[in-house]
């Protein structure tokens, strides 16, 4: 086996593409701003520079390992260069750290501390640049940008959107949409993956924390929370709870302490979605019309499809997302009671997703011309609220959510992960629900973190071709193939974010490969804990259909396309 020597330690080369991976394998956490294993190599931050035995200095992220290399990661020169680079970054950075959203979680801040920068010799000559607050999901603050380009590459390479890029030169360089447009005027889908990779708070999530506190404080308002499937396995990340562990009970208790009046589980609404989407799919199969059916639970994907491939917009399911269905049902459910009590119901959805903040403003998601979901809080915002209130999240024991809208099947639970919607629909469509059949479905190729998965199943004697996609760039390529006649499907599930909602733009970071794996396992564990496996077996769903939902299915559960 070939080796390279890193700080006197021999490290075997096992297919690593760059020296940086080997250094990290050797147990040294070499700092970087612009290196991400899923993005192309950019080589701009120069934090990962190392020195070899001949005194040559190079960036380890872009250097191919060669057998026999001798690398030092912390020589006197390297130490001083690394420190100087941080100092230079800080010199033109907005250094109001104490009032920054990312205070305590900022990578620039923590690296400055780590490499020991305690003084910045250069005057701060930074010009104050305007902050872009126009998007409902994302805030761009160029004053805090260190130009690592992670957001630019994520938006382009992973999401295929390219809403932001570099403009201007040298020290005047900025990451902004083209032609000085506001982010809301671009093709940005609001997925928030740019914010997720941003090491500082140059790109952050548009916060609704204050307005939600205001609503809670208002005695005349009934504040209802609905909690999405992926929130429960990530909300504990900042409270020393093992990664991927289900903290739903704790979250419910925390929300009650905060003052939410009712707390429901969006998994329940996911079951509703499965019922509607499965029915729509069967109908389209029968008619042979508008196939493939594209799922519509992911607002990032819906917007991407409408922006870039409008010719496919008719293939999108007419179903609202679980969030949309749920809020419509809740508003309808509490309508009479509100009138009686003279109250107003506000639905706050707690989501792993920043695009959901945009979805609630879409007119096709309105019922009778009114917005159903009032506010969306991302997981990170809820974490902030928990911290603001001082709730000792790791200490509280947990409570169960309110009935009747919290009983959900395992099919609803797995909506949070790529392939989950498909698996839940397949469970629904399968006449048998025994262990063997369900196991077979789970092994049919819908699970796993691959960007594009394909499978075929038999349904009523017909072969049904299915594709499961995550990452919008992958979706774009799939659509190109469909258009070119190189691929054909009946059912296509798309989630904008890699691995699905568990890695949504509103989830807490940083999330390395291990966290990603744990989150995925966590979701499937929730499913395993459910006695009910399929939406159609959920008695609460059955009761709803037979009860007050009767005759209102289309109005409340489907997008209002003719608004």
């Amino acid at each position, binding site marked *: 086996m070939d080796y390279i020597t890193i700080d006197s330690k021999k490290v075997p080369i096992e297919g690593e593409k760059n020296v940086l991976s080997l250094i990290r394998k050797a147990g040294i956490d070499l700092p970087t701003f612009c290196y991400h294993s899923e993005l192309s*190599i*950019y*080589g*701009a*931050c*120069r934090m990962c*520079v190392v020195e070899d035995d001949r005194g040559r*200095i190079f*960036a380890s*992220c*872009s250097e*191919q390992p060669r057998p026999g290399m001798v690398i030092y990661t912390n020589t006197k*020169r390297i130490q*001083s*260069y690394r420190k*100087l*680079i941080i100092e*230079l*970054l800080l*010199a*033109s950075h907005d250094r109001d750290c104490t009032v920054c959203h990312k205070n305590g979680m900022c990578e620039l801040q923590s690296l400055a501390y780590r490499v020991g920068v305690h003084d910045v*010799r*250069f*005057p701060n*000559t930074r010009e104050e640049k305007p902050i872009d607050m126009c998007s409902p999901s994302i805030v761009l603050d160029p004053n805090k940008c*260190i*130009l690592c*380009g992670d957001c630019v590459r994520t938006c382009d390479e992973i999401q295929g959107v390219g809403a932001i*890029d*570099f403009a*201007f*030169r*040298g*020290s*005047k*360089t900025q990451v902004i949409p083209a032609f000085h447009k506001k982010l809301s005027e671009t093709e940005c889908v609001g997925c928030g993956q740019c914010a997720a990779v941003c090491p500082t708070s140059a790109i952050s999530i548009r916060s609704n924390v204050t307005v939600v506190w205001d609503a809670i404080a208002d005695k005349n308002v009934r504040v209802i929370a609905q909690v999405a499937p992926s929130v429960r396995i990530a909300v504990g990340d900042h409270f020393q709870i093992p990664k991927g562990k289900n903290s739903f009970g704790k979250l419910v208790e925390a929300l009650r302490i905060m003052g939410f009046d009712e707390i429901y589980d969006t998994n329940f609404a996911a079951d509703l979605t499965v019922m509607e989407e499965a029915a729509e799919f069967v109908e389209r199969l029968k008619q042979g019309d508008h196939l493939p059916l594209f799922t519509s639970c992911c607002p990032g994907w819906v917007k991407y499809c409408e922006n870039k491939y409008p010719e496919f917009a008719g293939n999108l399911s007419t179903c609202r997302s679980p969030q949309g269905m749920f809020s419509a049902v809740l508003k309808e459910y509490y309508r009479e009671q509100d009138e009686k009590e003279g109250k107003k119901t506000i639905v706050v959805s707690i989501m792993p997703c920043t695009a959901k903040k945009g979805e609630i403003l879409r007119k096709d998601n309105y019922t009778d011309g009114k917005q159903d979901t009032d506010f969306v809080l991302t997981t990170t915002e809820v974490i902030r609220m928990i911290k603001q209130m001082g709730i000792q999240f790791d200490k509280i024991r947990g409570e169960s959510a309110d009935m009747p809208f919290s009983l959900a099947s395992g099919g609803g639970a797995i909506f949070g992960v790529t392939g989950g919607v498909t698996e839940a629909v397949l469970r629904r469509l399968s006449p048998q629900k025994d262990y063997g059949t369900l196991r077979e479905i789970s092994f049919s190729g819908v699970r796993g973190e691959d960007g594009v998965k394909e499978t075929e199943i038999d349904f009523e004697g017909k072969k049904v071709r299915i594709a499961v996609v995550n990452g919008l760039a992958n979706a774009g390529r799939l659509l190109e193939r469909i258009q070119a006649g190189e691929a054909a499907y009946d059912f296509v599930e798309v989630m904008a974010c890699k691995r699905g909602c568990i890695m949504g733009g509103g989830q807490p970071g940083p999330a390395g490969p291990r966290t990603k794996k744990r989150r995925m396992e966590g979701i499937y564990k929730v499913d395993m804990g459910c006695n009910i496996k399929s939406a159609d077996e959920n008695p609460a769903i059955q009761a709803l259909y037979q009860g007050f939902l009767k005759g209102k299915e289309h109005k409340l559960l489907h997008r209002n396309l003719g608004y």
Partner: protein
Amino acid sequence: MNIQNRKALTEKRIQAKEAMKRPSHRILVCAGTGCLAGGSAKIYDKFLELAAKEEGVEVEFGAEIAHTGIKRSGCHGFCEMGPLVRIEPSNFLYIKVKEEDCSEIFEESIRNDRPVERLLYEADGVKYETQEKIPFYAKQTRLVLKNCGHIDAENMDEYLAVGGYTALEKVLFEMTPEEVVDEISEANLRGRGGGGFQTGYKWKQVARQKETERYVVCNGDEGDPGAFMDRSVMEGDPHKMLEGMMIAGYAVGAKDGYIYVRAEYPLAINRLKLAIAQAEEAGLLGENILGTGFDFRIHINRGAGAFVCGEGSALTASIEGERGMPRTKPPRTVEQGLFAKPTVLNNVETYANVPMIINEGAAWYRSIGTEGSPGTKAFALTGSVKNTGLIEVPMGTTLRKIVYDIGGGVKNDVPFKAVQIGGPSGGCLVTSNLEVCLDFDSLKKLNAMIGSGGLVVMDQNTCMVEVARFFMNFTQNESCGKCVPCREGTKRMLDILEDIVAGKGTMESLKTLEELGEAITNTALCGLGKSAALPVLSTLRNFREEYLEHVQEKCCKTGNCQALQQYKIRPDLCKGCSKCARNCPVHAIDGKVKEPFVINQEICIKCGACLENCPFGAVVKES
């Protein structure tokens, strides 16, 4: 006319030679950018007018070969003396020609074959009748620039007549692609764009890639301040460069060539476009060239004026329509260059060397220049030197020969101080380096580089701190903004240098400059960044005492740094006439008439108006 085979090309060449001989006299008006700016277009028109009225004198133009007779040639190189006019066959070279001179030139030199004495170049009391005798030309070895100024740059036939496209003919009919690569490798041609990388090796690497779609790219994004070698070739002899690119295309199996020219070179772009159109029409570009089955097309891309686009990966990105930013390597350009395909990337001068290597052979080429750096190098000689202009000398020529023999020495005979070589990425050579042979390797030892060939001569009146500040300002403006050391570091270095020339520097500033310079050199992403600090580091090493003067004594002995100067009125000489106060644009001077006036230093903008206007010499400039 389409030349379909070798025989037709030979015939065409014979015709072109005949046509070139036809007129009895040729008047070559320099149409390089410098001379055009000096009014050479009007001179050309005037000659056209004079020749039209003339009867009996054999001056032909507008016959089969369009411009025979009066030529708009490419740059003659002697830009200091422009506009230049050359008369053939007598080879008189007239300098600083004005429209009014044309009639006299026509009368004397065309009708009577006599020189117009007053328009000849004169140095040290000697008048030089012919271009070839002028030391500026006599001491050069013009190979790449051989045709510049001698043939009509807008006429392919003239290029054919002087042996153009014989190298292409030779490779297509007599050599295999491998033999071409071997010949270039054997000649040890090194890239003229700055790096000095072996061209043959580069071609070989591209030729052996598995991917069969390959590209030939020409870097014409000459961005160094004061450098214009490539521009002159593109303007004066565009076909030579095209021929070099075609040969490269044949050698590496490419079907498409791209020329990346900066948009600030409109004349070069027009001439290249014309040359490409002519070659296409003649069948020398396009499909099945000369019936050999070799296909090659050349496209022009205009750069929007970014210095960094001279860097290979930024250049290819820019051609692709992306933001011109360098990327990390590997993969290198030879593996994944333009459109992620194997790419040969050389600069204009390098390609212009190729045809003569093929024609004359590698052994001949190696007999010129030094062993490690064969051939010649074109330099743009500018700054404080008597004969500025474009020169070409064998590699290994000493700096002294360039500055004193060709350049005629420092202007106004002020003592020599230094040359900045290699533009903003290079370093400075000082008096003790005058005997240094200019080639790739010996300059590297001195922490300088040939770069693309900018040579700025500086005399004792030049402030080296200001020079460093100038170059740092340039690099800082041209940084692409990608990597932190270059983007932020150059900005901070510039801030510090600005402080120093404003008299606000400290000893700590010098230390920080060195620290930043070293860090940028070692950690920047691309060649531009890695060399950004070199002018500062090089002046700090060679002229430290000047920096110390600025920092410790707050003075600039050369008087270049305005902020360190003070205008004062000597009370003993001032008669109180108030003329200075009346001429001061900012009302910084006050006083009572007939009593000595005083300059308020806080308001003074140091424009010098008082000094110019004082009739008694009472205003003095102190540093």
